[in-house]
């Protein structure tokens, strides 16, 4: 887990609960996040970023996008990376890199992380919902969460994590299609079942000609 702000510790917490071994890093010394980790995500282990990602099967990136621009892509080479980040000019300020109507933020992130397999997920659920809205598999009120990526195998691996955490994974077969998960899109910040989620995706895709 890279990022220990609003979102990082909550993701770490639900991942620990799902039985995963979790390391977590902020920008600096792990001592700085020791207490945060102990109280908000007990069972996860604070590390320096390089150590946290070194032997990870999967890295979740949840740092502000305006900080991502200075993030060293080499750290994530050959890793499977979940991009949980959003471009929010109201928080990030206007960033030239992301002011690009032709590309979604995760396509731009993937462009910078050229050595990594990038999947977009966990960006459209609020940090304050992530724990409380989990449901066991098969529950009628289980929430659907999008998983988008160009690499089918990578999408499948992330979808499995989403399912184990407590959500129905709705797969989208490209990062381009993942633009539908962004702020302002039809699923952002909304609690939808898998069926409702899929319907929203199809309606939007039909309307915009994107798939």
């Amino acid at each position, binding site marked *: 887990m890279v990022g220990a*702000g609003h979102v990082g510790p909550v993701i770490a917490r639900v991942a620990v609960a799902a039985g995963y071994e979790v390391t977590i890093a902020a920008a600096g010394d792990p001592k700085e996040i020791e207490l945060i980790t102990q109280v908000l995500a007990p069972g996860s282990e604070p590390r320096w970023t390089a150590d946290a990602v070194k032997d990870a099967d999967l890295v979740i990136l949840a740092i502000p996008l305006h900080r991502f621009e200075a993030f060293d892509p080499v750290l994530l080479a050959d890793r499977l990376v979940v991009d949980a980040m*959003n471009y929010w000019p109201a*928080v990030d300020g206007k960033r030239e890199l992301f002011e690009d109507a032709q590309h979604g933020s995760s396509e731009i992130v993937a462009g910078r992380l050229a050595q990594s397999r990038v999947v977009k997920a966990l960006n459209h659920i609020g940090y*304050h919902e992530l*724990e409380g809205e989990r449901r066991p598999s098969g529950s009628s009120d289980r929430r659907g969460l999008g998983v988008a990526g160009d690499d089918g195998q990578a999408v499948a691996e992330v979808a499995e994590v989403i399912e184990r955490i407590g959500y129905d994974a709705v797969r989208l077969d490209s990062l381009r299609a993942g633009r539908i998960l962004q702020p302002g899109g039809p699923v952002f*910040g909304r609690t939808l079942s898998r069926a409702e989620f899929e319907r929203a995706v199809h309606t939007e895709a039909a309307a915009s000609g994107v798939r």
Partner: protein
Amino acid sequence: MTTPAAAPEPTRFPVVLGLDTFGDRTSDRNGRALSHAQTIRNVVEEGVLADRSGVDFFGIGEHHTSDIPMSAADVVLAAIAARTTRIRVGSAVTVLSSDDPVRVFQRYSTLNALSGGRAEVVLGRGSSVDSFPLFGYNLADYEALFEEKTALFAELLKGTPVTWEGKTRAALHDQDVVPYTEFGPFPTWIGVGGSPQSVIRAARHGFSLMLAVIGGSPARFAPFSQLFRQALERFGRPPLPVGVHAPGHLADTDEKAESEFWPHYLEVLRRYSRIRGFAVPTKESFAFEIGPEGALYVGSPETVAQKIAANLIALDASRFDLKYGMGGLGHESLMSAISLYGEQVIPRVRELLRSERPTP
């Protein structure tokens, strides 16, 4: 939610029940927007009524938009202070990141003098970001700005002369900063919306913690109180109170409160959702938010009192500030909500807490 073992028994602080407003520009009976000037004068009347009704604290949040023209909250607070003798007055919040800590100290120290020691400050990093371009700050620097400026503010509160050096303003060398406070530092809080770093920061500087719970289940913030208490201990500081700031509205009955509040809530959130990309609320999501698990305190005095008491206990907090007002919701409705809060909700919350929490 797992609770780490051996959490220390928290110190009990007196229960403080306040009101906050952002000073939204309200509408008249015909739905026409009032002038900024009239909106500001109305807020003074509301503060005075809060005092008369038995409310403990009145806070005004800094905003810089034509919908919320409260850019100089401390001036408005001074007017309220001059007409009252009992109620405490403060910010909710002051956007410190785009302000000068020296000026903030001077203004609130002056308010403290005027009010006979009734001033408080709630410092915020600023999620309403209109002030950044206005004062020439880059939004992307908000973390660094807030960190450095809270550190300076903590220095200023200790009393002068102050020696300080940083990147965000001119250095101070043995600098006298006036007016001196009369009875030591005034209460200072950090407003936190869900950033654990901000919780730690509050503890590090010895500021109290004000949790803004404006969406979702309030109980999920309980780990933040815990984090705050453990951080205070780690930094070798004495216990400090935890407060909750949350939006709501009151009328004689649940139905009346809901029907007054809903159209304005919808309108405000619709505007907000355009900026943040969130879904516009529906009747169902509203029903959830005003229910026991939600973040809104909308209803009759009994409904709201029950919810406040339950969440103070769940969050182990001793202070609750109800943020009243919502977009165009009219001054008359707000005045009536203020009376109900002071005269009925506050005594009822105290009663509920006495029966739940035996005093040691």
